[in-house]
């Protein structure tokens, strides 16, 4: 097992280089660069091409892509994530500033989605075709049929503008002291939007796998043995239903870090999503590379973790190897 982990960790380096290099090349093929990104065409025309060329040189944008990439890599190896081309601030600092808010939001959403969704899903499976089952199924589908911006704007107009129950945007109330309650109040609406997307998914997978498991032969066997239903469920069904659930949660983790751009935009939440989008649209290469690096690393680690959990949950998998 340890060997496998080591092997996986070693592979991450070439994978990360590949991903960052390819993404960088693609983004640099897009027209425009950090110099022209924030200037409207009229102003740009007035400033003239000479000025644009001069600024490009100052920012090092006149060098070929691969050269720029390798100087970034060289700096990275020495622990320097570089500085934003747009505002000169250190990239590492910017990313760190965003990870907190993003994790808060997405973490809460996934937590709510799991804690509420999984039990609901299991319950639905156990009482298949009951009223509860239909309500949760249809309710879940309705929740995910609503585009997130629509939900977000709708919630803002109801709860913030009309009823003034929650703030309309931001992380904190400006001009007042920081308090956790203030932060939580600001989190309610965006988390609601995100949870509405997570919850049906969790519920659906839980229900589906639970149904699968309930039909298995060993379930019939366990029941026939006379064990109480609840024990049967808990010890056998639940554990076997875990595997796809682990996959799903594990797959959600990378999403956790890339953030939810639309929700962040509507609620003015300073997360990784808006950082990434802004970096791309303004062609801020150091920030783009930094963001990709961080999220890719997290994805790889999350996958490794999910695989390890797989092995723990299902001993048969652990024993896989060469085919007999």
């Amino acid at each position: 097992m340890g060997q496998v982990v080591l092997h996986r960790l070693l592979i991450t380096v070439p994978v990360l280089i590949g991903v960052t290099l390819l993404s960088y090349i693609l983004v640099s093929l897009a027209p425009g660069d950090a110099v022209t990104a924030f200037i409207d065409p009229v102003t740009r025309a007035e400033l003239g091409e000479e000025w644009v060329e001069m600024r490009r040189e100052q920012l090092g944008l006149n060098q070929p892509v691969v050269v720029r990439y390798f100087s970034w890599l060289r700096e990275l190896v020495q622990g320097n994530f570089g500085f934003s081309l747009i505002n000169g601030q250190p990239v590492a600092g910017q990313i760190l500033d965003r990870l907190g808010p993003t994790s808060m939001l997405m973490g809460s959403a996934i937590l709510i989605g799991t804690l509420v969704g999984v039990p609901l899903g299991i319950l639905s499976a156990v009482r298949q075709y009951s009223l509860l089952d239909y309500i949760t199924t249809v309710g879940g589908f309705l929740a995910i049929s609503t585009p997130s911006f629509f939900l977000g704007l709708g919630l803002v107009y109801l709860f913030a503008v009309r009823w003034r129950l929650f703030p309309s945007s931001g992380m904190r109330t400006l001009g007042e002291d920081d308090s956790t309650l203030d932060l939580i109040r600001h989190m309610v609406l965006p988390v609601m939007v995100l949870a509405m997307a997570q919850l049906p998914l969790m519920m659906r997978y839980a229900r589906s796998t639970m149904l699968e498991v309930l039909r298995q032969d060993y379930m019939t066997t366990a029941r026939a043995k006379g064990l109480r239903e609840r024990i049967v469920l808990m010890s056998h069904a639940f554990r076997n239903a875990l595997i796809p659930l682990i996959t799903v949660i594990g797959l959600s983790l990378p999403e956790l870090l890339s953030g939810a751009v639309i929700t962040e935009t509507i609620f003015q939440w300073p997360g990784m999503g808006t950082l990434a989008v802004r970096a791309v649209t303004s062609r801020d290469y150091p920030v783009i590379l930094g963001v990709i690096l961080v999220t890719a690393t997290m994805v790889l680690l999350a996958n490794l973790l999910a695989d390890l959990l797989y092995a723990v949950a299902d001993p048969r998998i652990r024993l896989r190897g060469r085919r007999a």
Partner: protein
Amino acid sequence: MGHNEADDAPQREGPGRLGRRELIKGAAAAGAAAGLSRTGGHEALARQDSTPGAAPSGALQLGGESEPAGTWLPYRASGGAETQVFDLIFSRLIRFDADYTLIPDLAERFEINDDASEFTFYLRQNVTWHDGTPFTARDVIFTYRMAMQEGVGASQYNKLSQIQGAAAYRAGEADDVTGLQMIDDYTVKIVLERPNIAFLVGAAHNNSLVWILPEHILGDADPATLDQHEFAQNPTVGTGPFRFVEYVPDQYVKTEANLDYFLGAPKLAEVYVVMAAPATQLASLESGELHIMQAISAADAERLADSQVVDIVPTPGVGIFQTAIMNERFPDKRMRQALMYGVDRATLMDVVLQGQGRLVHQSVIGPEWANYDDLNTYAYNPDMARQLLEEAGWDSSRSIELIWEQGFQAIELAAPVFQQQMSEIGVNVTLTPMDEAAFEKRVIEDMDFDLAWFGGGAYGLDPDVSSTYYACANWTPNGGNTTHYCNEELDELFAQGRATSDIDERREIYHQVAKILNEDVPTIFWWSENMIWGISKQVQGVVPGPNTDIHWNIHEWSLTEG
């Protein structure tokens, strides 16, 4: 701590020319106020003395115009939220009030010589920087000179290059700029290469010339690493009514009151410039969290007309919504005139703007004295259009491509109408929206387009602004002339207009300019739309006007309990 020294005319009458005061007022005021209505009690008192002893209170939230450009160096300013911040923390030599009348800022008065080639600014003597250091003419000279250095890459150099000796200094051939003269500690004289009365507009308008920076902090800065200088990240030393406190990226900029402000301590304790998407800002405005928002859409303005929370204040704009025609591809002016005749601009404006704007038929649309009513209004006339097309020998099997930067709702609405009405006169138009970078590349770098739709500009500030866009010397990529229009008679007129400070002379000169542009149709001129402000009823002291720098008197604003 002086108190409002010169509310009156900022200049001295000199020998020979009368009406300089009128000139200044005229050179700056914006165009006719069509469809303008002011609601709510936002008339400010001319001079508001603070209640003696009252400490500043209240945290005002201003909606940020767009993402700030990057570092907090005025040299990088490009019209985003950073200009709003700079207006709070820095000062200029002179600035505009709500109606684009020039008023004193750091310069309590100024003089212009007869042919508008020399400008002398007399600076206030009681100004201190936020760190207590006294402000002097040295700071002015320093700021302007630094903007000319090549290594700094200032976006304002374009305007400053007209100062005598600027080019030589920039090229490293001279140690000093001959046209930037420090007469004494509080007097600065600027000499231009060629007369240009519009230089004043540049000195005052927040879109071009420079906020004055502290020499004692940036004097030794190395231009190459300017972006990493502490000041570029935290510009805490300025002369403005508010002092920079912090910037939280994608969230807000926080500033606090400068009690030693030379026009009197502000009444507000803090001002935040809030960055958020327009839909979000509107929601915050309606919920009472945001206090001022600009660029409210016409539809929202109508919906909020009776709001209990917000006052909707439309003001005339100075930009022009236009469709640039690549003149090199369509050299026959009859063809271009046909395009103007072939679209029902009036009805379209009603639909898109719902009355919040005015039609324009050429680019000289302001200030007030520069409005002419004997021009061709190109009223919708498809028959005339077809006739002109025939005369010009237009081949109706040919198709032309209209490009625009996606995301502009006005264009998204207008373009299909345009396409349809064009097809009715036999012109086949294809529509191609694209993202900002791609659009800029096509229009400015490649200069490869038939029709390109965009808006903006500051045409209404002064008729000379049109020269940026229509002079022969300014063809892209070296200037703002995207249409590659060229008319030597026009260039001659522009030069004449710059060289005189007599308003009647200028009025007549630009009348000729207007006639030529009206006739030649280098661009399809649509309209100038109003800038609609949403101002919370809690804010007192706001005087809105054509000037988008609505916070020109922010030191007099206050917040009432909501």
